[in-house]
């Protein structure tokens, strides 16, 4: 069950040769075409020809999310817009969005790695796959879509939401595979239960779930409730979208398609490479991307790498499930949320140095975000309606910024714990793997 046996099962040594060849070509290309890379490589005293072995990767400069924002919208593109056939973008909730571009060949590469992902999950041409990831600037929907068409599955491009309709089509079409976020999968299972759907009419066999962190326990729960095999897929729009890595049916971690995406794990504090098995920040170099290539992109995701062979026969390096983040980003219902966004909203409404706390929990299958805001004397008025309207304003502004619903709770001063060092802005009550690890040490 491979999409591309040659690449997926290539002996490690042979792949290293291919990776080196592609890395050298990549460095040459960005040096010639991307002013940012020419500058940072020069500053590091490097010329393209200096990359002689894969070990030289460690000498190349990192690319950070800030570099992407600073060059908004097209500053890191390595091809002209004439050759760029598609752009996607992040939601831009921390300011300007991150814009990524694809050439025709990039779309082919993306379809290829998504086809591999789907084959990892056992999805092939006789499957009917319902794609309930959002379609649009978000990479989830279209990314899975192209891969699914490539393997020849019958695609139902329903996008996210309208759960009852999802269930109706699932019954009527005999959908066998589902692609969506894990929290939406759980939500679907609950609606299935509520509506008393005849389960014999649901033929779902497998789910490819990603775009948010989820625990193995949650995977087991989804498997039980939906009666599917739950496959964890990994990707990020900066690298390509979904299709960077995928679990196979042997459940041994996520195969990183490392003929396209060269992974490293580093110590986030020192930047030093860490050996397999050690936990650190995942860094990825896009070996083959044309329009939007990245060298040593710091994903801020915490994971470990594994090199032992997998019984499935694929020889890729594997990554663990993402164990946390190096920054304080939260992923809520698939949306990236930074505490600093809430802070800017509060400051804009007119409260200097606001004290606030984000309390995240799961209500049923869905993430729920409560924002606690301390009522200071400066904006306390004697009238209930004044405070209620203040609460509503804060809620509206935050929702407008994040694009997700929140609850705002006005609390007394000093309710929110003051800390000596970094303020504790988040209480995450969700059962996610290692969600607070980076903050704790």
């Amino acid at each position, binding site marked *: 069950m491979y999409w591309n046996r040659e690449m997926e099962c290539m002996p490690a040594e042979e792949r290293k040769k291919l990776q080196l060849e592609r890395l050298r070509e990549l460095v040459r290309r960005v040096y010639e075409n991307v002013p940012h890379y020419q500058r940072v490589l020069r500053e590091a005293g490097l010329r393209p020809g200096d990359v002689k072995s894969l070990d030289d990767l460690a000498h190349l400069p990192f690319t950070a999310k800030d570099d992407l924002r600073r060059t908004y919208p097209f500053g890191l593109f390595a091809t002209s817009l004439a050759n760029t056939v598609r752009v996607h973008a992040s939601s831009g909730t921390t300011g300007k969005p991150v814009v990524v571009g694809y050439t025709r060949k990039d779309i082919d590469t993306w379809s290829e790695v998504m086809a591999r992902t789907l084959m990892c999950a056992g999805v092939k041409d006789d499957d009917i796959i319902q794609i309930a990831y959002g379609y649009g600037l978000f990479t989830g929907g279209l990314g899975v879509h192209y891969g699914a068409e490539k393997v020849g599955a019958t695609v139902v491009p329903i996008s996210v939401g309208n759960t009852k309709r999802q269930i109706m089509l699932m019954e009527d079409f005999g959908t066998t595979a589902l692609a969506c976020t894990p929290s939406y999968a759980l939500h679907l299972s609950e609606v299935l239960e509520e509506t008393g759907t005849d389960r014999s009419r649901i033929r779902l066999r497998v789910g490819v779930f990603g775009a948010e962190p989820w625990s193995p326990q949650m995977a087991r729960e989804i498997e039980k409730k939906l009666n599917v095999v739950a496959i964890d897929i990994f990707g990020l729009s900066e690298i390509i979208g979904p299709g960077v890595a995928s679990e196979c049916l042997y459940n041994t971690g996520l195969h990183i398609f490392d003929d396209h995406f060269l992974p490293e794990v580093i110590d986030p504090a020192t930047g030093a490479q860490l050996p397999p098995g050690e936990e650190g920040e995942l860094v990825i170099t896009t070996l083959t991307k044309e329009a939007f290539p990245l060298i040593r992109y710091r994903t801020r995701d915490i994971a470990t790498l594994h090199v032992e062979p997998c019984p499935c026969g694929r020889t890729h390096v594997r990554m663990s499930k993402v164990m946390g983040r190096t920054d304080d980003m939260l992923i809520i219902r698939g949306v990236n949320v930074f505490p600093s966004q809430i802070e800017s909203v509060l400051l804009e409404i007119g409260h200097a140095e606001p004290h606030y706390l984000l309390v995240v929990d799961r209500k049923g299958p869905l993430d729920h975000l409560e924002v606690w805001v301390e*009522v*200071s*004397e400066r904006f*306390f*008025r*004697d*009238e*209930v309606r004044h*405070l*209620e309207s203040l*609460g509503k304003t804060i809620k509206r502004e935050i929702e407008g910024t994040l694009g997700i619903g929140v609850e705002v*709770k*006005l*609390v*007394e*001063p*000093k*309710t929110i714990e003051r800390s000596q060092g970094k303020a504790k802005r988040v209480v995450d009550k969700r059962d996610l793997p290692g969600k607070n690890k980076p903050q704790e040490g």
Partner: protein
Amino acid sequence: MWVKQISIFLENKSGRLAAVARLLADNGFNIRALSIADTSDFGILRLIVNDPARAYQVLKDAGFTVSETEVLAVEVPDRPGGLAGVLDLLHDTGINIEYLYAFVSKSAGNALVLLKVEDLERAVEVLGANGVTVQDYNIVHQI
């Protein structure tokens, strides 16, 4: 003329009201009148005490969110229709009442009602012109 009311922001959780009452008691304040406006998440406690300026400081020092509001202490005839008459006067002149609550008074005769209105001066004028007494700050806080 204006009576100084202390307003305190309280979260809707057990023990908060008791904490305020205890703090005031320990500092020798006498609560003359109080009301609570509440929602599901929070409440606003409104108090008339002797020495409101010091009470404000004590509460603030204890970390409460406090504000001072000026209200009217209006004498209402202690008989059926007494309150209605006063409210009619204000309504007829287009003065909106934000809220009101009753004052606990040992003096016989008239009842005292605390009124929060937008335009205090005009309310006093209207009430005075119609023979309604608005109690003085000193009298109310010293009762």
